[in-house]
């Protein structure tokens, strides 16, 4: 038996929204510690890692580990019917065919419940081991989203370089080139400041298409954390308060092949 109640249902909705363009079908793994999704996107280029700890929920019970095969598009359809302030309850049997989703609204005293047919997804669990990174950048998520969106106009790939000066996004394409530099600074509001922790400068190049997909998680978090080291995948991390995160991993482009496109 699995049962979990999240007072702020919107978080869950936003999580699904953030991955639905990237991942069609994924297993939601439920365990005593919490719920998580770890999978590659459907084109097998990037990796998504989502975690929401048990203590993020106001009620959480999981008797035995479960894998719930979800179709993200269908789940998003059901979340469309959720009110802004609703709390959400997820329920499933031990060997489930369905996932029950209940939307409760205290103000209007309504309870809506839905059943989502589950899929049987046969795949392997993948993860990127935690490693120390040479550069860690914290910046406003909205700002990151805007930059990525804007640079897409110019080209397919974007170089992110992190130096003492700041963080620089460079793009070049057939119509011209673009260059955005953000210096580290503290703002009045904590969430608007840009912080850089750096051991050595790093410069990597990425497909903008995927970075753009990642920014769909912007509503989840005020700040985004980018972690980079030479020749390893970038981590685009959207922390969800202290209880969880949505992380994306993307391998840097290498010069010789554009096959990852």
């Amino acid at each position, binding site marked *: 038996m699995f049962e979990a109640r999240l007072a702020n249902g919107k978080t869950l909705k936003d999580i699904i929204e953030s991955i639905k*363009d990237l991942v069609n079908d994924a297993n939601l793994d439920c365990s005593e510690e919490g719920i998580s999704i770890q999978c590659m996107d459907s084109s097998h280029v990037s990796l998504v890692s989502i975690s929401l700890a048990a203590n993020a929920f106001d009620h959480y019970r999981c008797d*035995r*580990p479960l894998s719930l095969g979800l179709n993200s598009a269908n789940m998003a359809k059901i979340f469309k019917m959720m009110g802004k302030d609703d709390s959400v309850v997820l329920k499933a049997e031990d060997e489930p065919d369905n996932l029950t989703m209940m939307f409760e609204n205290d103000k209007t005293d309504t309870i809506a419940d839905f059943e989502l047919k589950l899929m*049987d997804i046969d*795949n392997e669990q993948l993860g*990127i*081991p935690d490693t120390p990174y040479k550069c860690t950048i914290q910046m406003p998520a909205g700002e990151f989203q805007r930059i990525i969106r804007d640079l897409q106009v110019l080209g397919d790939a974007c170089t992110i370089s992190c130096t003492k000066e700041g963080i620089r996004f460079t793009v070049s394409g057939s119509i011209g080139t673009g260059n955005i530099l953000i210096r580290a600074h503290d703002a009045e509001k904590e969430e608007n400041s840009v912080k850089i922790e750096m051991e050595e400068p790093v410069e990597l190049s990425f497909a903008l298409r995927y970075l753009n997909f990642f920014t769909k998680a912007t509503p989840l978090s005020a700040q985004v954390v980018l972690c980079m080291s030479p020749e390893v995948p970038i981590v685009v991390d959207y922390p969800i308060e202290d209880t969880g995160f949505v992380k994306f991993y993307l391998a840097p482009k290498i010069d010789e092949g554009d096959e990852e496109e």
Partner: protein
Amino acid sequence: MTTNKRQNDASISDGIAPKRIRGGGGVDAMNFVGDEMIDEDFIEMIEEQNPEDFIPDDVEDFDDGDSVIAASRSKWLRPPLESRLTNENDLNVQWLDIDMVAGPPLKRNPNRKKSVVAGNTNGQQVPIIRVYGVNEQGHSITMFIHGFTPYAYFALPQQFPAKAFTEKVKKDIRRLLDGRLRNAQRSNHGKLNEYVLAVQYVGDHRSIMGYETSHTQFLKVHLAMPTLVPTLKRIVEGGIDLGIPGFTGEIPLAAFECNVPFVLRYMIDMDITGAGWLTLPQETYKVRSKNEKQTHCQIEVDITYDDVVARKSEGEWNKIAPIRILSVDIECQGRKGHFPEAEKDPVIQIANTVTVYGEKEPTIQNVFTLKGCLPIVGAQVISSDKEEDMLMKWRAFLECSDPDIITGYNVQNFDIPYLLDRATALAKGSSQSKTKLANFSLWGRVKNSRAKMRDTMFQSSAYGRRSNVETTIDGRVIFDMLPYMQRNHKLSSYTLNSVCSEFLGQQKEDVHHSIISDLQNGSDEDRHRLAVYCLKDALLPQRLMDKLSCLVNYIEMARVTGVPVSFLISRGQQIKVFSMILRKCQDEKLLVPTLAKQGSAGGDVGYEGATVLDPIKKYYTDPIATLDFASLYPSIMQAWNLCYSTLVSPTDVNRVNPDKYKKSENGHCFVHSNVKKGILPTILEELLTARKRAKRDMKLAPTEFERAVQNGRQLALKVSANSVYGFTGAIVGHLPCLPIASSVTSYGRYLLEKTKEFVEDKYTIANGYEHNAQVIYGDTDSVMVKFGTSDLKEAFRLAEEAASKASKIFPSPILLEFEKVYYPYLLMNKKRYAGLMWTQEDKYDKMDTKGLETVRRDNCALVRDIIQTSLNKILIDRNVRGAIDYVKSQISNLLQNKMDISQLVITKSLNKGAEYALGLPGGKKDDYKVKQAHVELAARMRKRDAGSAPQMGDRVPYVIITGAKGAANFEKAEDPVYVLENNLPIDCKWYLTNQLSKPLTRIFEPIIENVDKNLLQGDHTRKIFIPTPSARKGSLMMFAVKATTCIGCKAPVDASKGFLCKHCVPKEAEIYLSKLAVMREAELRYNDLWATAQKIHGTVHSDIMCTGDGCACQFYRRKKVQTDIKLAQQVLDKFGR
């Protein structure tokens, strides 16, 4: 003299030999013997010295110094001549190739009864027609036909007084034209003494165009050389002064019959048909002595053109001579990553098979190899250490075996050009090679004639557009099987392998050219393997040719339409009809105008085509009868006498008695056949009568060969009859006539409507029948009738009755035939249906489908299979429920990735326009506007490995893999082998929505409601499998780590604590067994596939190297099962720990 000779050599080694017409075989041959002209006495002297020697043995000019060749020579030669040949007997020859050269005229007529040599005698070069053939004994013969000259007609003005055309006027016109032609000649080279040989007035011919025509008087001009005809046409069309009062000044005259190829002109005038038998009556010809001979043929004769007797292809003369057919295949040693290029890559093997027509087994089988090779059973192996030697040995073989026809698979565009280019490339390398290979390209029958290549573009509405290399080998016909298959059979793949498995039930190992190099560098045994493979490649086209009676069909087509066989290979449909019209016109004293080619102004001059009665879409479980019009278009043309010569032009309509003509359904008038019978109806009548006869003969044929000939004949007749209509409608053609073409289709529509009316009016309950008949569909020449009865017998009876009754209301020879009943019948849309076909009452013949994905090539095999099986279940088993369940299970398998990848492969060919995307020279951006999946993939594969990447013209196999949202198809296409090797996930949903859903909806729409919901969605789509790609450079998988999950329930587990979660531990044994079963299944599958592959390729102790996607040895499946076993083993290994 020396300088002169060097120049001559240079022009030859350029490979651009002088045009045949100018250089002249005769002159070349003279140079070859010696620099000075040899007088006749000298020839006769030599003749007397060795009178018995008649074998075309050219050992003296070919010094190979190889004992193997010398020993084999006798085996390769044609049957020797029994005795010295004289002209005392008639000589019968089946001819195959024809060409023309310029040469000196004959000094005296070989026919002693005639003293004068026909044609021009003033010493200048004259056209000589060379005809190559084989006699009944299989001896090769070249006939030099002298005295025929080209000519052209020009229409004189209508009021032209015939009487005024005096000898003086003729002389004046002749002088005028001669002068103008002389001036038109740009250089002094090839200047003639005389251009116009004669000018004649022709008053008894008329133009074929129109019932009333203004062209009834003509000027016939004889010329010295065929090349002058177009120039003359231009001059006369520009206007000439006729020199008669009232007709002075530049009067342009319309050209007639100026576009008839010279050799065809001769054939038509002498009534010679293609590949037919010719008889040279005794004492009309002269046999050339050994020293006079210009060719390698066994017999050479001179004869004047009017002494040749053409045999009509009937009775005895239907036979086919023992023609020699050589099938060739070469192997090249490509460099890694490159397609072989003649500039760099050596030819390593040349396999040959020589067959004599009429014999079942090949006469000669051999293979020339570079470096040693173990002996091969049934074939001679001739090894050489140097490539140059091998090439020259092969050339010696070619000359000795003297084939009439050279075949192979894609020889035209690959093997032959490669050999020639390779020799040229080698000759550049060193002077030693140059000397050695100097004579390599002498492949022709004419001595010293080199094979000449040129690039051609071939375009035809029926065959599409193809670029080719056309190689001329004097006296030999190149009959490539690949274009033949492409023209005559619609297949999903044209690789030799798939074609052979389709028609011969035979497979060959499809060795990728990158492996060939390794084999060549290996041991004698490896090369033996390659040689066996190469020999098979040479043998298969040969077998294919026999099986499909290609040669017979082409010979019969040439006989029926009267064009040389080579025209059938290198030219389109039109020349055939044109030849038939010209022949018929000659009898009727009609002349065909030479129309100016109208560009491709097709757009607005189209006309309404055939009609289609609206289908009533449904799944019919009652018998549906099909009534067909037999040869609809030809019989329409006959019934209403539609022809060029019967067309009354709108301006003349008022002047013609209305009783004489009939207005067609769309307003064109044609006179009745009793007024004037048209040329086309006459041709058609003859063709169709001949076909009936051929069909009858086929039934009576005593031998299999005879039957094949008659079958080829009736097919050729049918195709020819049907192409007449197309000829009249071809706007860019020789003689388009839209009034005819549009009248034909309008009558077609009328007939269809009438039939529908008749059937639906007559077969009603009101008229005493049990049901009301309903025409549920009709297309061009057939109507489908539902008589309402559920009894098959009754349906047969009613349909037969209806057909014969309906035929009576139409004019003869229009005939409505009852052919077949569909029962049950699934009518999906226009030109889309499926049904069980019955031609007898007791047993159905087969399942007949039209317009369905079962035949279309741009779909994957999965679609074809699912459609085919569903139809089988629906129509044959009548189990609709079963069909639905089957489709669902297939969809579910697809989503779980259980589908074999070969089922999902889609192939498309790289056509013109793709050069740009591939970065090839000559690619234009304009030619490639929309990105295409297979082209983009080919470009990507090129970057990975240029050698194994598909080349222009190749079919590119691809599968669709998953991509990011919004990724276009061309980004998602991937090479199947690459997918297997990297375990990339296939976009199963794409296959479901883009490939399966439409055809399935079409089939099931008439049967069940809401196909989308009931078939394509539901529980069976909810179990999926997502593979994990293998790590490759630059991908995220290089960094990702597989988390340990419980083997039983997929829950994450701690790797150090085992492989099962605590909930699954109690079920360990059960889980182990299930995983073991997976492994066992994979192993068995592997075994089966392996055994099958071994069986197909006939080898049990060596690797299967075949990588062909069309091969039944299931390359993809073998590859897949290897991956499966590996994965299953990994799972099992966990239990051991």
